[in-house]
């Protein structure tokens, strides 16, 4: 379906890649709903994927008691909801991540405050 309008209806999309200094990446931590929503970050495409756990995410999730216990080699990732195996040594772009992709991670054995998914 499309918009019904009284004349031609053709307007630019606001959030295309060119409008940002770096592509956006959406990241969610499963079973940790103390963090209200997934986060949104502009990240240069040459950022090594492994830097997420080591340098990017501590700023957001580091305050959670589970965070320090994450074994990043055992973490399960999904991309657009489907199982996904990124290579931590390669960059975000080399792992195929594009503007406005959404990835989520689950750390086995860690399910929030007293297992409450918080």
């Amino acid at each position, binding site marked *: 379906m499309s918009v019904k309008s009284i004349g031609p209806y053709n307007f630019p999309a606001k959030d295309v890649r060119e409008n940002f200094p770096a592509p956006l990446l959406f990241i969610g931590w499963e079973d940790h709903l103390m963090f209200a929503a997934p*986060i949104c970050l502009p990240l240069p495409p040459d950022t090594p994927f492994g830097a997420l756990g080591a340098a990017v995410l501590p700023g957001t999730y580091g305050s959670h008691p589970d965070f320090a216990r994450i074994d990043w080699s055992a973490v399960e990732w999904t991309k657009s909801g489907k199982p996904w195996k990124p290579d931590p040594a390669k960059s975000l772009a080399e792992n195929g991540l594009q503007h406005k992709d959404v990835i989520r991670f689950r750390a086995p054995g860690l399910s929030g405050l007293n297992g409450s998914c918080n």
Partner: protein
Amino acid sequence: MDTPVIKKKLGLKDRYAAMTRDLAWDTTYQPMEKVFPYDKYEGIKIHDWDKWEDPFRLTMDAYWKYQGEKEKKLYAVIEAFAQNNGQLGVTDARYINALKLFLTGVTPLEYYAYRGFAHAGRQFTGAGARVACQMQSIDELRHYQTETHALSHYNKYFNGLHSPQHMFDRVWYLSVPKSFFEDAYTGGPFEFLTAVSFSFEYVLTNLLFVPFMSGAAHNGDMSTVTFGFSAQSDESRHMTLGIECIKFMLEQDPDNVPIVQGWIDKWFWRGYRLLTIVAMMQDYMLPKRVMSWRESWEMYVEENGEALFKDLARYGIRKPKGWIQACEGKDHISHQAWATFYQYNGAAPFHTWIPKEEEMAWLSEKYPETFDSLYKPRWDHWRKEAAEGRRFYNMTLPMLCTTCQVPMLFTELGDATKIAYRESDYLGNKYHCCSDHCKEIFDNEPEKYIQSWLPVQQIYQGNCFKPGTDPTAEGFDPLLAVLDYYHLNFGSDNFDFETSEDKKNFAAWNGENAEGAAK
């Protein structure tokens, strides 16, 4: 002797006809369809505008008289409230934050409604529909003014109430109500009436007004109660317009039914998402609770809605898609939303707080299936953290739903431990939504929603700094620059209530120390 002149007086019905429909005419210099082009392109077929039943039965002279009397009473109460320092009589300064939410999130919508109805009041071919919309348009302008006047008194004493209109166009959470109304009034006039008059005012409005106004009454705020009642008497007319418009469209042509059903599906969901902030206000922001969000949802939506949609079934209309999800949400959304504002309180111009122990007990009692297992653990943790000097703030911007623009905080139907993620591709770009229904709204009109002004994306594009800001300057703090652009007074408008000026001042005015004990 002069013959006495007998004044011919019109009966009520004739008088009404003379002062409404008789004022309309069919144009001859230009064809009617060129003069009234807007009520055709949506696909709604109207065969006989004379079948429109005027819902208000009110002529302009009577309208001015009634409204004038209401205004006199209202302003007398507001004046008395100010003279008697009524602001000191509210239960607790936490209550004022419900007013801040109302003034920033609801009052500007009245102004949008005024504009929307003025537009519809010009564009309908039928004079009856035009007159009804014009009167409602004036009502909405009146509500905008009276709410602003009533609340301006609080602005003298409390923080965060100083720039509602400026904030409405900029602050992240206000893009939710703003985009709701912009979506509605950029539709055609029939969609606008289905959105605002029917889905919002007829189906959902009690959930907006009753909690705020009875909340005000319970918490000693007579000024707000009075403007609420003054507006509420108009609302009943507005609800009548909503149901009349729906029935008129459905009776005029069977081809209208699927179009109207699609709008009901869309606008029930858009309205429900918008009411998330009312849910949290009701369960968390009123020092004296009226009833829980869940209870009012059951009373005003589940019970009334069942009857309404049973009645509309004879036209082939069913309950809106999303009904089941919305009904399940009654156990969750208030808790999810308050937790969101609690952690993003650095960027909101009102205060948040951890519920007190007795308030937590109330929440456990009202939400026996969900509060203790899902939501209490985070409050217990945050309470402990705050006590140790680590009040929790989330410093990373959240992912937003492209349609409703709420942060992606809503969970899956049947599993409240999983955030719901939905994704669409359109012309090589990805778009994300919080639910099946927001995704369906996006997919139906992607050309519209790719223009969404999403606050998080706008911040990252560098569009939320004051002109002249230099992001390359040494020590540049982007978040502080955004708050400056919002006109948010850092340190007094935002952050936790416990450390707020509001709390300290209110206690001092009442001769107490900040913990509430008499000095």
